[in-house]
């Protein structure tokens, strides 16, 4: 496997952030937080009111702990109500409306509504920086050929950030997401004469890899110059990650990012998605740009290292539509810097297992996260993809998982298929404590996702009819 350039040796600036002691990092965060809140106290009616509710002034913020204890959190519902009262950006906007240089909206996949974010010119540069940063850490260098599989442009942060990031790194970027079919993207990549880096959602890297293998193409042979695969947005099982690295012959990297972070808030960096001993690796958080808390979603008290909690984000320098103590709804396993081997004082979250608290389905008394089913299904390399459905029949909750086999299983006999289906069913039960009906379907019957997959439908309410 190609050895990655050491990002800390190649970037003195990054080495300085890595060399901070924890008290030095927290002093930097406190200084940036005070400056941010002093600005918002003057420019944002929404945050000025929240400071007032907390009985605080920007000058009166004495510590990060005091701020976390007193300043109220905001949620998606708060932002949507603010936007409705003060369209289009809400009173949380921290700049004059005419200074908005880029408008981003969240994807709308939650079904609750889309948050609207106004970015200043400075924010747009930071948006690029917060994409360039994890990719430089992942080995991307000026002049490298990079293929961005995430649909570009439009309204989302994910549509604009990669373009800005690749541009300011100086990479040669092909933005193939959205407009081309998977086969057309493969054909284009094969014509490029060398590709060094791919950025894709977890789901789409899976689709791309399966499509290559289905055409009899071994990725590491077709793309021998590839030195980085960078994924985001969805969890995955380690077995899958291992097979991806084997098929491509290079490291798999992961980032945690969001519209609210104005790009990536952390990444695995050169270490990749595997930790020491072959377990899950760590996403190191870029805490000098985003202040992260990981809290119990019920009590809002800090989560202990090693436990799963909700990420709460505070932008330390975003000007346009900053989030301050925003409850992301993202569920992540927190790992304190003290427990995260690696030599920096950056806190971390576990790679590959980030989920959503609001995606959780209550099924027969069990809390079931789609990521848990993903992990069970995709631990089987015979499976191409799947779709899940929860529904009510005769007053009983039923769960159906329809899966399509990968192309390399085209000649698999029925007995072999039945064994795989039984194994998937067992694995799902093992991870969720729920028995689900698992059936085979054709690949064409499954929806294809260019970015974030939405594999589950909860149709239980439709079953309640009189």
């Amino acid at each position, binding site marked *: 496997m190609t050895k990655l350039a050491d990002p800390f040796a190649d*970037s*003195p*600036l990054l080495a300085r952030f890595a060399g901070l002691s924890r008290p030095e990092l927290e002093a930097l965060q406190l200084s940036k937080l005070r400056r941010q809140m002093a600005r918002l106290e003057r420019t944002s009616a929404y945050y000025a009111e929240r400071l007032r509710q907390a009985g605080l002034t920007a000058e009166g913020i004495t510590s990060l702990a005091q701020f976390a204890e007193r300043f109220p959190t905001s949620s998606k519902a708060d932002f949507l109500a603010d936007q409705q009262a003060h369209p289009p950006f809400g009173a949380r906007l921290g700049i004059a409306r005419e200074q908005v240089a880029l408008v981003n909206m969240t994807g709308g996949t939650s079904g609750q509504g889309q948050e609207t974010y106004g970015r200043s010119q400075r924010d747009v540069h930071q948006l690029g920086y917060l994409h*360039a*940063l994890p990719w*430089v850490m992942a080995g991307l260098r*000026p002049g490298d050929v990079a293929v961005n599989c995430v649909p570009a442009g439009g309204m989302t942060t994910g549509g604009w950030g990669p373009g800005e990031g690749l*541009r*300011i790194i100086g990479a040669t970027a092909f933005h193939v997401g959205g407009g081309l079919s998977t086969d057309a993207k493969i054909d284009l990549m094969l014509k490029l004469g060398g590709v060094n880096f791919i950025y894709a959602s977890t789901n789409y890297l899976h689709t791309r890899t399966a499509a290559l293998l289905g055409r009899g193409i071994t990725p590491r042979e077709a793309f021998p110059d590839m030195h980085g695969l960078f994924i985001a947005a969805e969890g995955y099982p380690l077995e899958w990650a291992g097979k991806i690295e084997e098929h491509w012959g290079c490291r798999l990297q992961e980032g945690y990012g969001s519209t609210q972070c104005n790009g990536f808030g952390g990444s695995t960096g050169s270490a990749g998605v595997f930790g020491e001993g072959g377990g899950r690796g760590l996403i190191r958080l870029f805490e000098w740009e985003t202040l992260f808390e990981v809290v119990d979603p019920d009590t809002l008290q800090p989560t202990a290292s090693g436990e799963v909690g909700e990420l709460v984000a505070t932008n330390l320098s975003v000007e346009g539509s900053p989030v301050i103590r925003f409850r992301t709804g993202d569920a992540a396993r927190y790992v304190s810097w003290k427990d995260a081997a690696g030599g920096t004082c950056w806190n971390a979250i576990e790679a590959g297992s980030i989920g959503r608290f609001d995606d959780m389905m209550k099924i027969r008394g069990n809390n079931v996260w789609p990521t848990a089913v993903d992990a069970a299904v995709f631990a089987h390399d015979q499976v191409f993809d799947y779709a899940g459905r929860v529904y009510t029949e005769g007053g009983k909750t039923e769960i159906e998982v329809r899966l399509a086999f990968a192309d390399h299983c085209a000649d698999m006999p029925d007995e072999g298929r039945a064994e795989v289906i039984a194994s998937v069913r067992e694995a799902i039960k093992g991870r969720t404590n729920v028995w689900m009906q698992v059936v085979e379907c054709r690949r064409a019957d499954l929806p294809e996702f260019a970015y974030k997959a939405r594999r589950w439908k909860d149709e239980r309410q439709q079953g309640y009819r009189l």
Partner: protein
Amino acid sequence: MGEPDDDAVLRAMRTEAERLATSGDALLRGQYEYLRARIDALIELRRVSGAD
């Protein structure tokens, strides 16, 4: 009186940006080159004379 001064400021900024763009920092080099290119574009689009 403003325009000639703007040109002088941009030329000075170009010199400084050129210096930054020689950075050996992998994270910053591209960003400095981006800054220099923006200044270059402003200098060029303000040119109204064929004289160098």
